[in-house]
């Protein structure tokens, strides 16, 4: 396929992916908006008022960046894992497999869908937050690039999960038992300096901690981790996951017999 044809093909996949989650907006866009509103009521008003400031920010304002990123992570992952797995399950992935689409375009298409969902949900959650508080913007470039890189990374992770999945259970196991704990322990609701030293060290092995803090830096200008380390880590994870997912697709893992 020449460049123009590839562009058309990518657009076709993206269009389909965006249409899918837009059609299902009650399942895809609305829930994170509602849970964010609940977080604001509970942590902002009820509990947050009892908690002292963190790094000079009201508790609620401190956790806003983490809440946004958490929604981005869950939704990027969820979009790709569900979409790719269902295309395997209903077998319409074959529509792509018989076409001359190269595998990297299939991958970019699905990951682009996850990214679109991540951005849509991130935007929706930010809007909800703006009803409750003012979100400062310390560094737009850092905030945006962390958001996009994180969304891409978890889209890739969702894709890998879906490629390996052979049942609907397989696509809920990782989000429930790995993703959610890592996110909750990734410094969304606290600063790691509150933890005993042992747990601070353990937390440093959690990649999500770096993303949450880098994003928090973009908005609030405060971070528990070194930004350079955070960026290098996020980019490195992206490269590894990209390569790994592409490799699986090239081998036809789980889709070709």
């Amino acid at each position, binding site marked *: *396929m*020449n460049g*123009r*044809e*590839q562009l*058309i*093909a990518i*657009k*076709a*996949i993206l*269009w*389909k992916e965006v*249409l899918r989650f837009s*059609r299902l907006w009650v399942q895809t866009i609305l829930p994170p908006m509602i849970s964010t509103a609940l977080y604001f009521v509970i942590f902002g008003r009820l509990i947050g008022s009892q908690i002292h400031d963190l790094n000079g920010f009201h508790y609620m304002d401190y956790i806003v960046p983490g809440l946004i990123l958490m929604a981005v992570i869950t939704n990027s992952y969820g979009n790709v894992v569900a979409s790719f797995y*269902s*295309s395997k399950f*209903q*077998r*319409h992935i*074959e*529509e*792509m*497999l*018989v*076409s*001359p*689409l*190269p595998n990297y375009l299939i991958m970019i298409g699905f990951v682009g869908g996850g990214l679109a969902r991540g951005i849509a949900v991130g935007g929706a959650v930010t809007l909800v937050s703006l009803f409750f508080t003012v979100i400062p913007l310390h560094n737009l470039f850092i905030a945006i690039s962390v958001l996009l890189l994180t969304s891409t990374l978890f889209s890739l992770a969702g894709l890998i999960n879906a490629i390996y999945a052979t049942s609907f259970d397989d696509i809920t196991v990782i989000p429930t038992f790995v993703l959610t704990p890592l996110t909750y322990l990734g410094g969304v609701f606290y600063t790691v300096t509150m933890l005993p030293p042992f747990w601070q060290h353990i937390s440093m092995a959690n990649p999500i901690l770096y993303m949450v803090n880098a994003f928090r830096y973009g908005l609030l200008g405060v971070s528990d981790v070194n930004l350079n380390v955070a960026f290098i880590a996020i980019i490195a994870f992206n490269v590894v996951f990209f390569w790994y997912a592409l490799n699986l697709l090239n081998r*036809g893992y789980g889709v*070709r*017999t």
Partner: protein
Amino acid sequence: MPTALSIQNLSKVYQNGVIALQGIDLTVEQGDFFALLGPNGAGKSTTIGIISSLVNKSAGKVAVFGHDLDHDLAAAKASIGLVPQEYNFNQFEPVIEILASQAGYYGIPRPLALERAELYLNQLGLWDKRLEHARNLSGGMKRRLMIARALVHEPRLLILDEPTAGVDIEIRHSMWNFLREINEAGTTIILTTHYLEEAEQLCRNIAIINNGRIVENTSMRELLSRMDTHTLVLDLLHPLAQAPALPGFSTSLPDEHTLEVVVSGHSSITQLFMALALQNIEIGSLRNKTNRLEELFIRLIGNKGEDA
């Protein structure tokens, strides 16, 4: 001019150890209407899966219009349209979108894709259903939708894996006409079917596969001419007590109103009727006991299947 399809020594062992293909060779010329026949589990869908790269081959070579699958996969894929045996739609996607996105995967711009979608949906009688979700179509409509989907990128080789399974007679006949037309317009067609009459009606060349081996590969005409005997079933107007002796023909009487006569390739049916008239046996109607191809098919599968 390269052949539309060339397969050499193709074999397939599935991961569970099933040997689906044991070294098959097959050539389909451009413009042909080719039947790939065989009993359940013979390896037809496996062969088609490999050609359309949904199944990885274990050994052998496949080339489509001279494009080797190992070296020139994208070009090979671009020239194939596949109608798979099993439905593989996104059940929640509207018909028109299924066609538009499929065309998109081939790099066809959306306006042109929609134009072609309209054309093929109309030709296959599905235009009214364009906004329905795939899951709301009947079985026969889904089959036709798969044909339309396989054509949106205007492939030079159309491969149909049991396209008429579960399709009613009227639609089946209109599908046949449609397929004949696109074949006449230049598209090479490979068809699998369990309706042998369909293969006989449509196809010029034929391969029969059994237990992963090609047991016959010839022209339809040649195959049918090999038919040395066939059985006529005559419905009698008046009951008979026993089968009459007709010189030159062997006869049997399954019931008092039905007479079966085995006719050899060179004997004259006129002779048969004269013999019947001499004995005052009146015939109400007559038909072939089985479709000719069916009879041959059973013989071929029966004989050569055993030693596989």
